[in-house]
């Protein structure tokens, strides 16, 4: 079995005023791949192309997943199924019927008896907290419930590759991790692949192995999530996975004098930066803002009077303006 799912070569998807996807060339391997980017970056367009919902205006998309991974003998009745951004639900079907018809179309033969189908349906409904809404039609569901149903239906289809466009986007943040756990378990159990788009860096970090960063229809970065997190190529790419401190090579001697001098810029994530109270420290706090998991501190370098915003994990005492501090690199 090949690891390659898709290969895109100079793919363009034309839009009204500009290209929605602009000369994109990339490969997508088996596993979990996140597509990340700002609103309007082209995430949904890329997923629509991969799903075959839309066709490229030019360029070639090779779908290696189709023949290589699918087929009942490989345990996957479908090569691909998806969770579109609007849920793509069927207005006339109840929640339960959404899952039942998917089973009826594809899985009944491989699963066996009706009882088993009902059992799996019940389990999925329970896992996505939809049991009490199983007789409701999509119009009667909240946005969150619609999102959950769309994901449940995709899992019920049990494809070789799942495409999810901002899955669980409308679900409350408290319960979202438990639903992601269901998805994760499904992928692990069945050996399926997932390509999903999201705005949330935390989801990318926790769920994906690879990442594709898009901006204005173009690929900004493609590679491993860990690499993008630790050694991003530029500040914009770094920002896709959350806050980061970016030190230009020339200013490293000012802000991190103990760091070995190199010609490269340095990116430090909040957990790698330490701001500690130090009466003899070379910096003074101008302002301090606590934002839950990290803090934003405006620092002034006393010798040069240069100022910089530092994002870090607050440790120990809460800082305040006027305090003398030192800056450390924990990585």
């Amino acid at each position, binding site marked *: 079995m090949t690891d390659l799912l898709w290969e895109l070569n100079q793919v363009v998807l034309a839009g009204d005023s500009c290209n929605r996807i602009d000369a994109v060339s990339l490969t997508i391997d088996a596993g979990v791949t996140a597509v990340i980017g700002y609103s309007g970056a082209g995430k949904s367009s890329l997923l629509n192309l991969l799903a075959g*919902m839309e066709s490229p205006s030019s360029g070639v998309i090779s779908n290696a997943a189709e023949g290589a991974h699918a087929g009942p003998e490989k345990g996957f009745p479908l090569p691909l199924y*998806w969770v579109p951004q609007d849920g*793509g639900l*069927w207005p*006339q079907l109840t929640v339960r019927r959404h899952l039942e018809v998917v089973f*009826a179309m594809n899985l009944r033969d491989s699963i066996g008896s009706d009882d088993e189908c009902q059992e799996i349906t019940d389990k999925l409904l329970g896992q996505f907290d939809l049991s009490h809404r199983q007789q409701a039609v999509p119009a009667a569901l909240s946005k969150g419930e619609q999102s959950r149903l769309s994901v449940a239906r995709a899992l019920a289809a049990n494809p070789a590759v799942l495409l999810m466009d901002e899955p669980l986007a409308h679900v409350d943040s408290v319960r979202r991790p438990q639903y992601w756990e269901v998805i994760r378990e499904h992928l692990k159990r069945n050996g399926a692949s997932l390509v999903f788009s999201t705005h949330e860096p935390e989801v990318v970090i926790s769920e994906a192995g690879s990442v594709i960063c898009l901006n204005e229809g173009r690929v900004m970065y493609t590679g491993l999530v860990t690499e993008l997190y630790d050694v991003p190529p530029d500040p914009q790419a770094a920002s896709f996975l959350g806050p980061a401190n970016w030190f230009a090579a020339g200013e490293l001697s000012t802000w991190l004098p103990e760091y070995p001098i190199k010609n490269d810029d340095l990116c430090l994530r909040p957990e790698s930066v330490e701001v500690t109270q130090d009466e003899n420290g070379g910096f003074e706090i101008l302002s301090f803002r606590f934002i839950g998991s990290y803090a934003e501190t405006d620092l002034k370098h006393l010798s040069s009077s240069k100022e910089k915003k530092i994002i870090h994990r607050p440790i120990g005492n809460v800082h305040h303006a006027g305090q003398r501090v030192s800056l450390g690199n924990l990585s």
Partner: protein
Amino acid sequence: MTLETALAWSIGRSMLVTTVALPMSLVVWRYISVCERSRRFHRLVAAAALTPLFVPDLVTGFTYRMTSARLIHSEVATEVLYAVLLLFRILALQVAVRMILRSSSLSAEALYSWKLLRNGSTSWWLSWLRFEVQGPLRIPLIAWIGGALFCFQEFETAALLQIDRHPITWSVWLFDAHAAGEPLSHSLLFASRSMVFQVILLLPVILLLPSRGPQASTDTSLDSASRSSPIALCILFAAFGTLILWPLWTNGTEALSGIRALTGHGNLTQRMLLFLTGRNDLALRFQQILYSILPATIASVAVLQLAIGVRALDRPWLTVLAVAPGLCGSLVISLTLLAVFQTPLLNAVYDSWLPMIAASTLLMLPRALLLVVLLEVLSPSTSIHSAGLLRVAGGAAAVHGRNLIWQLDRVRWLIATSVLAHWCLWDVAVASMLRPVGFEPIVVRLYNEMHYGRTETLVAMTFLALAIPLGLICVAAVVWKRLPEKNDS
């Protein structure tokens, strides 16, 4: 000629004309959708496409009556003339349907989600067909059925174009038979035969009725619109020219001379004095038009409230019950209510405005529901509430808030009421069959006189019947805008 022959002609014509109109309306609608980038041009094009809906059939028939008379020796030419006039009217209707119901509750993504499950089984294909009908085909189907019903029910234009036998329509056949003294029971029996075709058309509409379900993404296949823009513009110009410009051109100058004749003799002051004291024909016609507007306005207000109620209750069976009579057409409604109001229970109110208002209300209910849906789309309650919140601030923000509410809410309801009143005012079948004995609505007088030739005063009366309501709407707009709102101190 038998009713069956007339029905066959009407059915054939309605199927043909509506089918031809469907792709044309798609081209025009796509062009209008693309024009949204330029707001002013979009409004202009949309107005040009929809204006034919507001031209009374009677005016169209009257304008082209002389043309039909010249074509008296060619039955085919007369039929073609009538079909073309219907085509352009139906085109406007179908564009309106596409604009109002621009998205289906089944999104393209939902349909594709089903396609991904394709396994070639019969159940998959059956479900796919159902998805197609409820998804991409839903709006074209509603547009086609709406067009076919309108075409089948059309009466006024056909009646005025029919110099000899053609155009042959069941509606004219039935109206003439009833006017010639056919017993009401016979007329109802004849009408019931026409209902067979209408019920066949109505059943799919009932299944495809718009629901409050989540609105899916709009049509994404608009990219080809720019390529078809010359065709769209040609269609628009042909429709607008045929139903608006040509009638204005041919009737305009005669109308002005006619108004002069209606005002009597003497200088302007003397004519004004005669008008104000109600001693010239203009004053009499003015009075007659005002009296005709009154029941039409009452019906339009009533039907709009009814439509809001039906929409708010959101029960499919209630919606079906509400729109079904109106979709049967004015002739069937008028004959039915004529029978109903002759029963002992309602006989006491037979000679009043009530039957006329009731018929107009039932007739307009489907259109009123469409207008309410349109207003919901154009003025979401959240937008109106957001504007309302500004009023609390006082000062300039409050003024902006009031203006926004006027633009978002009040003026749109005024237009909706006016449009419905306009359609009520110009319906000949309801007015002629259900009017009280001592009251002659202006449309009945016009309809009768239009059969006997073309005079300047007749053209002037037609012009006044169109212009006076328009003037009153403007006055109502000014007055309503100045009225204090409930929340104003």
